[in-house]
């Protein structure tokens, strides 16, 4: 099965436009970008995809050995770029995908023109040895994994409890009720472990393409100090603080997010 099908790739925008690849974070799928992509699809060749195991991707392609490390996801991204023959890519990665983009840029630096890192964090767990504050304890991550177990108990009857039918909300498209935030619980558990227990701090210093770091206000997952850390350790980066609160500005404040990305790309042109 090809990459396009495996990762449920959706391409938009003019054929000759500079490619912009959108990579979703933990828990959801490319639907997270639905309010941001239209702002760029008039000028850029936008490419959105689902990580294997999420959204409309091919669950059968999930290989626990390949995805035991972020490199597996980075390799998928690079395969996607090769398959679609993308060059000078503007990579836009949210949350844990920011570090997937970083990893991909270490493997193929010449593939990427820019990395846009939305609410990134190179490590979520505090490191007592060197005083790094990621915001969480190891116990918190175990609590997340337990939370995943509690919230997926209804999986076996084919619908995760967080998804409901839209019979009483006909204005919602069908596509929203089918795949968003739904995934196989075993895959969700492993992805949670791999991402929330990962440490990509050493990767930052080796990133060659220029980067934009978008930092939200009051983001419990990626707090301000973490965004500042990422900015300090990337060789070439700009940090922009958004007024948007929470961890998902691509959904809660899409206009502000798009504007920040636009401004950065215009200034870099």
């Amino acid at each position, binding site marked *: 099965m090809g990459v396009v099908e495996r990762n449920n790739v959706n391409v938009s925008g003019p054929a000759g436009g500079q490619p912009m690849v959108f990579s979703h974070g933990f828990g959801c799928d490319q639907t997270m970008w639905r309010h941001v992509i239209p702002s760029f699809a008039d000028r850029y060749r936008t490419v959105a995809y689902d990580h294997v195991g999420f959204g409309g991707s091919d669950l059968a392609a999930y290989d626990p050995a390949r995805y035991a490390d972020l490199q597996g996801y980075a390799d998928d991204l690079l395969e996607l770029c090769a398959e679609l023959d993308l060059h000078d890519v503007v990579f836009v990665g949210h949350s844990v995908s920011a570090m997937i983009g970083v990893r991909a840029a270490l493997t193929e630096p010449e593939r990427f023109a820019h990395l846009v890192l939305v609410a990134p964090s190179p490590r979520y767990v505090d490191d007592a040895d060197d005083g790094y504050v990621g915001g969480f304890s190891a116990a918190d991550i175990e*609590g997340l994994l337990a939370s995943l177990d509690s919230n997926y*108990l209804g999986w076996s009857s084919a619908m995760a409890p967080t998804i409901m039918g839209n019979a009483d909300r006909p204005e*919602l498209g069908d596509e929203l009720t089918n795949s968003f935030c739904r995934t196989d619980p075993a895959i969700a558990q492993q992805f949670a472990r791999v991402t929330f227990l990962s440490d990509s701090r050493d990767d930052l210093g080796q990133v060659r393409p220029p980067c934009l770091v978008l930092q939200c206000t009051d*983001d419990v997952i990626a707090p301000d100090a973490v965004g500042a850390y990422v900015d300090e350790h990337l060789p070439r980066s700009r940090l922009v603080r958004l007024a948007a609160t929470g961890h998902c500005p691509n959904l*809660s404040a899409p206009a502000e997010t798009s504007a920040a990305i636009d401004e950065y790309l215009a200034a870099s042109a």
Partner: protein
Amino acid sequence: MPGSSTGDAAPRDLAPESAEDLYHRAPCGYLTTRPDGTVTRVNHTFLAWTGLEEPEVVGRRLVDLLGGGSRIFHETHYAPLLLLQGEVREIAFDVVCADGRRLPVLVNSLVVAGDDGEPLGIRTTVFDATLRHDYEQELLRARKRAEASEAAAREVALTLQRGLLAGGLTGGDGFRVETRYRPAVQSLEVGGDWYDAFALADGRIAVSVGDVVGRGIAAAGAMGQLRSALRALAGSGLGPGPVLDELDAFCARLPEAKLTTVAYAEIDLDDGRVRYATAGHLPPLVVHDEGDVAYLWGGRSTPLAASPRTEPRPEAEVVLRESSRLLLYTDGLIERRARDIDDGFALLAATAARLHDRPVDEMADRLVEELLADEDHRDDVCLLAICLEPR
């Protein structure tokens, strides 16, 4: 008015119910937040359950009322879902109470929008899920125990099977034996195939390959008994035909052994003479040192304990040249649903011929690899290759 003490008092009723009372004395917690999650209103039930005071809740964000793992889940699942769908139901969170205790809850949330469609706020009902949570944890533990138990049972079956196949000769003065076993790809249970190689009293070498019907511990157990019985009966020195007849009698008393197929051969290392017989089993294959191959179609009879026999089982003879190989195998090696059996025979013969001069261990490895390359084998596969060597 409170009724009189007589039985004619008007029935008690809550009506009229003020909005205030409906809100605060509700059987669930009820919160209103701004779109960014800041709590603007909270009902008394929620405060009573958590022991929190109103000023500790109003003005704080919902996410800040939750315990560690829930905080992450709130940001990665709850908030995006709410933003995209306008409502969520049955999200499990842990709320941190005034005394530090964690209260497991289920929440439903609804985004309330203005006339312009922009969100004005979020209403959230909170249900105490303590008992349900405990029950779920118990179920999850039980499921994990069941899965571990299944895995352990499988391990036991595999260990048993390995044990039952042990003890065969691998070589000696004038011969070398290579055996291979590949379990069925999709099966969770062990199978009933076996291979064996042992010495007879007069120095000849006996080899057998067999296939018990069915799977699981019962089949494995029957297999072990048959393999041993064949060894014991072969010791009589009566030859393949009579040995299989005796094995029939043994099988008649062992229900799980009915319809087992066997290929059995006795090899004289001095002159290369092979006496053999098969009971319902695929013909052994001779691979000569010069690359010519031939299936041994002699000595055929019905599977063990198939039906009462009136004639003794036949046997046949062939002579092996030095450096020849004799292959015994089970049907999983060549039988495929979508392929004619003759094509399977041809493939095995051609492949073995091509490998005739490779060392016998390499031949065995590559035979299995190439014959199973289609990955369509639904059956266990057993292969025994015995090679005559210069003494």
